[in-house]
């Protein structure tokens, strides 16, 4: 059983969803990055997504774009990823990476999976890689015991969802809206339907992301998904400070346990 399967087995047993928090690596600073991930885990995140700051993030909205640019300006290099992941797993935390595919290709798919596995990372979310093009990547992740995590979107027809879940390990990432990352006021009505369509095709845990920012929204999603993924809202909170980030994690952690009033 992979680390991610264990994680979701545990949260399912507790009858709740997992809270998954995203930050770009090297944010707010390169030196303080691992500590910030650990603070999120401390305050209630079951899993963190370590984002690879990329020059051309087509699936990201302005908040994450700006944070990624800050991280790159702060000297972030690809090899820094593995040190950050190591510091998270050394404290018993669970981490996956989120990376556009070109940095992985440049590093070498096999070397990337190998070095992530050595650092204790569990999987990689690849937002701009579809299974049709993933031959090399699947071979690399398989060889090193890393979970390849693919996305499905509200526009994905059944046939594409089947093909995607066939190659996905750990959990399936369901994009709740058609659009880029960014906190939104309302949970998209497309998400429950997408998750229901996926459930008919797979037993994989399903994480729902894009747009979540409050405990109430987390509770709403936790009612039908196995994981609630929060990105831009954490980035904005971290921009304000660690205290704000911890407070948000606590609010969301209550949300995924369904213990938050439905207004925020």
């Amino acid at each position, binding site marked *: 059983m992979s680390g991610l399967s264990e994680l979701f087995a545990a949260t399912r047993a507790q009858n709740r969803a997992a809270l998954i928090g995203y930050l770009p690596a090297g944010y707010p600073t390169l030196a303080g990055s691992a500590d910030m991930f650990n603070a999120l885990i401390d305050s209630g995140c079951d899993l963190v997504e370590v984002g690879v700051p990329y020059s051309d993030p*087509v699936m990201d909205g302005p908040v994450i774009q700006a944070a990624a640019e800050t991280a790159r300006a702060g000297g972030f290099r690809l090899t820094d990823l593995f040190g950050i992941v190591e510091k998270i797993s050394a404290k018993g935390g669970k981490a996956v990476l989120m990376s556009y595919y070109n940095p992985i*290709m440049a590093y070498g798919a096999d070397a990337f999976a190998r070095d992530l596995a050595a650092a204790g990372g569990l999987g990689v979310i690849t937002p701009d890689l579809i299974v049709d093009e993933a031959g090399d990547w699947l071979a690399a992740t398989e060889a090193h015991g890393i979970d390849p995590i693919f996305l499905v*979107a509200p*526009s994905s027809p059944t046939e594409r969802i089947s093909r995607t879940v066939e190659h996905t390990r750990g959990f399936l990432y369901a*994009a709740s809206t*058609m659009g880029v990352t960014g906190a939104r006021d309302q949970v998209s009505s497309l998400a429950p339907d997408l998750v229901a369509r996926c459930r008919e095709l797979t037993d994989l845990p399903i994480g729902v992301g894009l747009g979540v920012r409050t405990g109430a929204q987390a509770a709403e999603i936790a009612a039908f998904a196995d994981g609630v993924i929060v990105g831009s809202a954490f980035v904005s909170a971290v921009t304000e400070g660690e205290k704000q980030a911890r407070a948000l994690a606590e609010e969301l952690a209550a949300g995924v346990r369904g213990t938050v009033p439905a207004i925020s």
Partner: protein
Amino acid sequence: MPARGVSATSGQVSPRLEQFQTKDVKPSMTSNATRPPRADGLPRPSDGLTGTPHDPTDGGYFGDFGGRWLPEALVGVVDEVAEAFAKARHDPEFLDELDRLAETYGGRPSPVTDAERLTALVGGARILLKREDLNHTGSHKINNVLGQALLTKRMGKTRVIAETGAGQHGVATATACALLGLECVIYMGRVDTERQALNVARMRLLGATVVAVDSGSATLKDAINEAFRDWVTNASTTYYLFGTAAGPHPFPMMVRDFQRIIGLEARQQVLDLTGRLPSAVVACVGGGSNAIGAFHAFLDDADVRLVGMEAGGDGIATGRHASTISAGSVGVLHGARSFMMQDEDGQVIESHSISAGLDYPGVGPEHSHLAAIGRAEFRSITDTEAMDALALLSRTEGIIPAIESAHAVAGAVVLAKEIGPEGIVLINVSGRGDKDMETAMEWFQLNGDGPGTVTTSTSATGNTTSKES
């Protein structure tokens, strides 16, 4: 493609052209367009859409290059475009409308000009100019835009988005949207809105919304990122009218097919004018649409060299350039596996060129393939060489080319000398230079009282141009 001396209806080869038939010529893949052949025998845009022996695989691969490296959320709309194009390319109604608009609105065919004074000055091969600068809106971009805008209508989409660098694709798109009654939003890097201010004004006058993009390097690649973000958000109503022969499948093939008319026409025009094929076809390469359009009809003519001129900026050695194939490496950018400019970490490197239309760190996958198999050559032309050539063509032929096209002129002049007087070099003049007058005024200091400091630079015809090649 068989020699264009083959008339679509009779299959007769004119005796004068027989010698140019390649041995393994396949029967002409004739288009389903219903109009009778043109009296002058020139092909029409629909003849570019018939399918070729050089089409990509179903997955969109030209050899090792191409494919669909994009978010799952975009697969649906991209599939929709592929299906619509697959049908349209064989639909007589679509083909006839494309041909009609190209002729009565776009101004096709574009002529080939015998550049006698330039040829004499250079003293090498005979130089011929394919005049895409004479098209409506001033460049080859309209060829692609009319095709895709008609496709948008067929697909029932009401809103068009596009990226633009030099603004030529944006202007062409805004033009077609005005003509066909479509809403139009153009994404343009902030830096480009400043250096191509005239084109921003043209787009606005044509009714388009121009969005200045500040992210990243605030140039063409960032405008493309922003257009993709818009598309993923508004997929159901919106058509992304991509401006070059790059991006995810089917765009590299579709844009190429709408641009193939350049080479199809030119091939026959050169035969008609000179009785033979050119020794080389030369075009500038940004994303690669005018170049692939000019090259494609000659792919099976083994003796015709295909030479792409990339933007060399301050020179490849300085790192400030946009010579993607000459100095880049293979990666995935904007939907395709192709050559690109990237650092060790796979971060895209900002490109640099005086020409906004060539200032792009990627290139279409078919060019990467042609480079990999050695069928096309790619060279690098610096800003200075391009500007020298811009002045040179202006003063010898009375044609002010776009700075993009001036890169082709600069490279072709060197090539004409290398090839010598027995040869013929065909240059695709992809666009006119009106949009670049501000840059030219600054570069040549034309706004003082005097006549300007432009000299009829022999340096552009001499040895200095070869320093980057």
